């Protein structure tokens, strides 16, 4: 090993240093000649859309069930066409942030190709309203990697594919709320109609009594009957009124047992006083007064 640097050694050292600088100077990964093409199975391929690292495809793209997507590009490190270690297309659901990736097929020359049919994309992403496509390329070493969103694609599922969608896997999370739907409350007709019919029904009573009195009904024999049987007649009529009173009480508050008790008390009174009262009525009939 020489301790003193000779001019030739200095030159060599300088060259080496220069090489080091060029190696350390970060170049960056990039791509050129990039196209994206959507073609349908059995149909003519769609138009090739060009994109570059600075201008992504701005058109809205749709990917139908039988469609497939073809991306061609050439990767470069700085200005030299070269194969990077990583060249992936990331497909992301823009709403759920779910993301999947697809590796390109890259030749040593840097020519890369990716064929992506809709069925290759996971179902969870296909149900998204919009997918963002990002190309990511990078490799070992100092060159800076590149990631760029190249397009937005709307996946369209046909009816059969939609039907075949599996239910999403169980996830521990808040579930949808459920509120009981009550049956409709029972409803009454408008009150005015009820009142009209109430008036019509109640009106029958004066009509009935009016008709009876018009046909010369009267209570003229009342004093005579009271004189003939002063206890039986009031008691009989009173017990009939009391029966109705018991029924009213049953309707309003008392129970069936109290009602039966009251009826049991009233029954013999009504039966005995009734038979006495009717005996008096028969006496009047036999006298020809009825």
């Amino acid at each position, binding site marked *: 090993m020489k301790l003193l640097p000779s001019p030739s050694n200095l030159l060599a050292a300088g060259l080496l240093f220069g090489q080091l600088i060029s190696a350390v100077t970060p170049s960056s990964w990039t791509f050129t000649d990039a196209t994206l093409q959507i073609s349908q199975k059995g149909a003519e391929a769609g138009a090739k859309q060009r994109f570059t690292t600075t201008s992504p495809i701005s058109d809205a793209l749709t990917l139908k069930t039988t469609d497939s997507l073809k991306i061609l590009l050439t990767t470069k490190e700085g200005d030299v066409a070269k*194969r990077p*270690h*990583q060249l*992936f297309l*990331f497909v992301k659901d823009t709403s759920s942030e779910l*993301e*999947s*990736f*697809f*590796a390109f*097929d*890259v030749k040593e020359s840097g020519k890369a190709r990716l064929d992506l049919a809709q069925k290759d994309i996971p179902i969870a992403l296909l149900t998204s309203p919009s997918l963002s496509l990002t190309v*990511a390329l*990078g*490799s*070992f*070493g100092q060159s800076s*990697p590149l*990631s760029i969103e190249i397009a937005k694609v709307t996946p369209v599922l046909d009816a059969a594919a939609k039907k075949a969608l599996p239910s999403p*896997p*169980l*996830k*521990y*999370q*808040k*579930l*949808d*709320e*459920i*509120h*009981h739907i*009550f*049956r409709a409350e*029972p409803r*009454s*007709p408008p009150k005015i109609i*009820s009142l009209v*019919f*109430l008036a019509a*029904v*109640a009106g*029958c009573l004066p009509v*009935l*009594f009016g008709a*009876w009195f018009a*046909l*010369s009904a*009267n*209570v*003229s*024999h*009342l004093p005579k*009957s009271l004189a003939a049987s002063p206890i039986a*007649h009031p008691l009989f009529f009173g017990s*009939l009124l009391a029966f*109705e009173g018991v029924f009213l009480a049953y309707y309003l508050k008392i129970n069936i047992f109290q009602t039966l008790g009251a009826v049991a008390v009233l029954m013999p009174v009504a039966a005995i006083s009734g038979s006495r*009262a009717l005996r008096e*009525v028969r006496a009047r009939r036999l006298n020809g*007064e*009825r």
Partner: protein
Amino acid sequence: MGLTLRSVLTALVSLVSLSQGISLTGPRTLLVLEDDVKAQFQTLISDLEARGFTTTTHTPKSTTLTLFQHEERVYDNIIIFPTKLKGLGPNLPSSSFLKHATAGGNILILLPSSQDDNVPTAIAELATQVDIYLPPKGFAVVNHFDPADAIEPEHNTLLVDLPSFPSDTKNYFNTGEDKDAKLLYRGAGFAVGSSPLVQPILKAPRFAYSYDTKEASSFADDENVFSAGKQLALVAGVQTRNNARITFVAGGDLLADKSFTKVAKTNKMSGNRAFAKDVTAWTFKETGVLRVDGIEHWGEEFGKEVVNGDVYRIKHNVTFSIALSEYSYDHFKPFVAPADDAVQLEFIMLDPYYRIPLPASSSPLTQHKNSTTYSATFKTPDQHGVFTFAVNYKRPFLSNIHEKRAVTVRHFAHNEWTRSWGISGSWPWIAGIWVVVVGWIGFVGLWLWSKPVVAEGKGKKKQ
């Protein structure tokens, strides 16, 4: 219930005997490692011991090691450290780990960071059984986009952000002081299945990928990439149905001493040490354990006089409340549900008739000191039968709560219906009854006491 009693006991024990925190499962911790590995994890082990864990060390091939004695767990927690061995010893088959977890014990598994090291067969088997899929030997994660060291060309030491979760999930893994600290990571990563029992804790950065270092050294083609981006998990936690926890760390160096250092790029300390505490605390049940402190329900009929009664009426307001607390290292504190999450109550008869959120109540019936009371009022359905109040609160990283209370919902009693005069549509019919009554009484009076007016009157005709 068993958990509650046990947790109260352990909480008492921790108060009496130790000032540090203690796991709800217990402090007895088994370290499975070879002697040369122990030196790499000094800080992790001493941090655990400082928190009250008692450690026992065994080598993987140890013949004296036994996880069960008299069918009882010997250890509460197990840590499997990275090993170069292809297989663990005869006393550590994968079934022994499952038996340990079934008995309520926790397991933390550190996989080797180096792609040249093996994952023992028993561990790979266990992983598959809990829906975690490890890549074969030789895989490594790289990230060309944000390598930890700009000079190092391999890009296999990653800088990873501390975990963040959607707003409906509690984050127990970012409790360190520096929330923006980066984690240093090296390892292979793994894929996580769709089971709700397994949750990824730490995911790879967006453009990172795990590839076969032997087969794909020059280019990562489709066949030799294991997974990439957010689908690639670096740390994942499994919580079994009995709330035992199994955590997989894909790169053991994440918790090793050499990662508890300054990050060259940011010139700040890495977040690894705090993250190691969070991961071990969650795995060994120092965090994320819920307890039900009380359930109360009462109805409109008897008000707060009758609490937890058996019978409610249909279409009556009923209030249900549940008090929840969560364990935090050495004490129970009120559990606060995440912002976008909700503790939900279901009112079930075969199907849920209601599933409603239970908001935190400011004025609970019984004031619990260390818990939050979640409460809601709803109207019982117009359907009688035997219903169940059910709180089925299962969330990532939280121990499961599944509480049920059955009650009878009865129909209207006969005197609880609206009276007939209160229904306007019945008025004509009620009037009809009284017209008949008055008409009949009048008719009886006239029949008894009417006097024929003329000789050819009705009296004669009636006979």
